[in-house]
């Protein structure tokens, strides 16, 4: 039994960040009674209930293992908290789900003040299913965005997982370390979608980092992307570039048509959930993907993913 969904949703809506852990427990639960409560929670933080999009900036931070994501996040959390912003991190662990269980160790590498209630770090196991980030991660981010100023989804990988993240977040930051030739290749070959902000870590390495930054910048331009920013940072003492990165993330969000972006994201999420639930057969019952997209486009822009999903399921029946 979990705490009541509607009450938790209300607390999140009032920006009570201490409601977050219990809300996440509920959103992760698959017990039938909890599912009902979770639906009420999500209803309470839906754009319709909020009277607009959730205020939190949802940022995807992704990159290969060892690129320095955790160190970078420690520095970013520090910068955000210093400017009075609350921040939550959903650390999606890659080494997960062997024999069903998982080892979630990533939070250990992110430094923060344990007494500070304005920071939350929650580990989540990556579910082994195709078609995007686990539903639990997505709805968690949605709910947290109602209460926190910044919500980070941290994922590991190059080439696939970051495209999943792109469907859910407002801003994608790809973190690479100097000398990551493979990232360059992935970008050029189009395996990887262009991130909004590209962060080269370990700028203290000097020349190598500067060269990596130049190469990546050139690669992005050759792909015709003038939009993406490339920044070099050093998260280790003496840190450099962190404030600039925080600013670049803010600027990306400010330049975004947030309403349109999130409506698209919710519709893509609903389609994705529908596919996972009902498969290609379900899709055929809707009259194909195009028909499904048309149906979704007819829905209220404020409808959340579960409402959209319900609409699809009604049509299928």
């Amino acid at each position, binding site marked *: 039994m979990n705490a009541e969904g509607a009450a938790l949703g209300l*607390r999140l809506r009032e920006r009570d960040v*201490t409601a977050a852990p219990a809300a996440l427990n509920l959103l992760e*639960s698959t017990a039938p009674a*909890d599912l009902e409560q979770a639906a009420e929670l999500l209803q309470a933080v839906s754009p319709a209930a909020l009277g607009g999009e959730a205020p939190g900036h949802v940022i995807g931070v992704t990159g290969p293992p060892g690129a320095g994501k955790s160190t970078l996040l420690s520095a970013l959390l520090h910068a955000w908290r210093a400017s009075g912003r609350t921040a939550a991190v959903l650390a999606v662990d890659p080494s997960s789900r062997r024999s*069903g269980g998982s*080892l*979630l160790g990533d*939070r*250990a590498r992110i430094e923060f003040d344990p007494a500070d209630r304005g920071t939350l*770090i929650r580990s989540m196991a990556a579910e082994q299913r195709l078609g995007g980030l686990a539903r639990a991660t997505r709805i968690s981010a949605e709910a947290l965005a109602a209460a926190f100023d910044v919500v980070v989804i941290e994922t590991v990988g190059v080439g696939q997982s970051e495209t999943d993240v792109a469907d859910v977040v407002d801003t994608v930051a790809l973190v690479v370390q100097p000398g990551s030739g493979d990232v360059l290749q992935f970008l050029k070959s189009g395996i990887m979608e262009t991130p909004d902000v590209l962060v080269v870590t370990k700028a203290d390495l000097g020349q190598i980092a500067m060269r990596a930054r130049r190469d990546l910048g050139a690669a992005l331009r050759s792909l015709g992307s003038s939009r993406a920013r490339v920044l070099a940072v050093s998260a280790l003492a003496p840190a450099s570039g962190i404030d600039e990165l925080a600013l670049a993330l803010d600027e990306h969000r400010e330049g975004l048509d947030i309403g349109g972006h999130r409506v698209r994201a919710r519709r893509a999420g609903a389609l994705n959930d529908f596919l996972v639930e009902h498969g290609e057969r379900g899709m055929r019952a809707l009259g194909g993907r195009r028909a499904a997209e048309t149906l979704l486009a007819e829905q209220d822009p404020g409808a959340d993913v579960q409402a959209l999903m319900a609409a699809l399921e009604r049509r299928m029946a």
Partner: protein
Amino acid sequence: MRTYAGHSTAKASNELYRRNLEKGQTGLSVAFDLPTQTGYDPDDELARGEVGKVGVPVSHRGDMAALMDGIPLDAMNTSMTINATAAWLLALYIVAAEEQGVSQEQLQGTTQNDIIKEFLARGTYAFPPAPSMRLIADMIAYTVEHVPKWNPINICSYHLQEAGATPVQEIAYAMSNAIAVLDAARERVPEASLEKVFGRISFFVNAGVRFIEEHAKLRAMSILWEELGRERYGVQDERHLRFRYGVQVNSLGLTEAQPENNVQRIVLEALAVTLGRDARARAIQLPAWNEALGLPRPWDQQWSLRIQQVLAYETDILEYPDIFEGSKVMEALVDELLEGARAEMAVVSEHGGAVEAVPYMKAALVDSHRERIRRIESGEQVVVGQNRYTETEVSPLTADAEGGILVVDPAVEAQQVQDVRLWRSERDQTAVDEALAALAAAAGDVNADENLMVPTIAAARAGATTGEWSRTLREVFGSYHGPTGVGEAAAATADADLSELQGEVSRLQEKLGRRPKILVGKPGLDGHSNGAEQIAVRARDSGMDVVYEGIRLTPAQIAASALQEGVHVIGLSILSGSHRELIPAVIEALHGAGVTAPVIVGGIIPDQDVPALRKAGVAAVYTPKDFDITRIMRDIVALVGASADGGGASADGGASANASASANGSA
């Protein structure tokens, strides 16, 4: 001959040393407490409960002078088990000698100073790998020139075996470690001194109860060492090429059940390092028979010393040339180990050397240890008194009131806190500030021109404290979390027991609505993480979500993790003897955060401490005699299940936690 000793205060340890020297001990082996080993003063939040526990606290030159009071340092051979803060403790020792009128050229002894094994097995690191290696190289360069009789580093494979290393891994990782150290030192010393540096490197190895194979291991290490000296470092002098090692025999194999059996294990292990003259140890330390129960008393230590004396003076072991010369069996065994070790060294080298390969080696050790536990659980590996022949008469040795262990007076910590504050208030603060600023400047210099020993000794003289020296360097170098090795650990091989357990876990999951989630935490400064790692890996293998954050957590950190992660149960591991202070502190922090998930504790917990822990709210206590981890997992499943039945809120720590947190917040 010496015994590893130190506890409570510098003064109490000094008395112990003097007593041991009178009994015929020929050198000192100093055990420092965990705050000193990890670079914190007694009044630091992280030092809580740890001061004077596993060794002596030394915070400044005054403490070192008291520790060595009346002991002639020009005649003493002093071995210090100190690593991350080795440069600092050597500096304090040099200053204490100065105060006795003894110059640094006369000092003899060893600083352990092996940081890689701290990352792999023991956990008392303070700085990231690269600057840690610089400190080591600087110490080597300094001592080779100014303290010529000092062994600046003692490469330890001992702790690797304690962490589960096979003989092949022990050899390969020790040699790879030595290569990393020598390569770093090569940058800091004149080419001509390299031969001397090589000659000053000694090893600290382990010897387990399979003593024939263990002896072969030492022969293999001698061969590899000589080869390395000749081929990689161009050493020609035979004296410098000799593989010099000291031994502490195995503690991992000592049992809490029927602890008297440990005496014969210790004797057999001592044979491994003394039998054949060609690979005989230069120094032997034997653990106390009751080490698995807690901190040994003087009488327990005397018994270990007497074992060595019987071997040396009663038996004929020292009277013959090498008794394995020409043995085909021994030769074949050595060749097999050499082949395996060379292959494993090549893997480490492919990872970029020992520093870069720390995560790889850590994961490999966690894996070996998991396999070892599996063999013991299944009965493939016999441990007398533990998984076979477990029936026993009542032991008169452990029947006395204290349960056979020395207990450190809790007042010691309060006293040390006062003392260090008094010290700070009475010294010349300007001199300290200047010395620390000079240290920071030398450490931050990108060209690393100055040897860090120089400003370190100046800071020791000025009266800086252990915590101040470390904090100054942490601010320049950054802090560091070692790899836990558990993420990479291979999944357990399927067996009937495990799949039954997985069934129980998935039934629990249905009941809870989400996957059972456990937080495995190590409060305090104790870095012995084997137990925690094995619990974490097995919990994963049984299908739970496991949050494991590694070592050195404050109660506040553990409480924050438990709350934010929404765990169903919290497992705390603690081996340093500070459970009496730390476990209640963690529970208090959990309650403060509103977390009501049940707490279990594992570690070296004497029976008589269990009632107090239960009273503080601990649901179950596990000690080394509970070697069957699958059974512990079953208990956890039952505990979480019962807790879920027991009432809505308590089944879900996070949920109830937040209800109360909010209530407080809005009140």
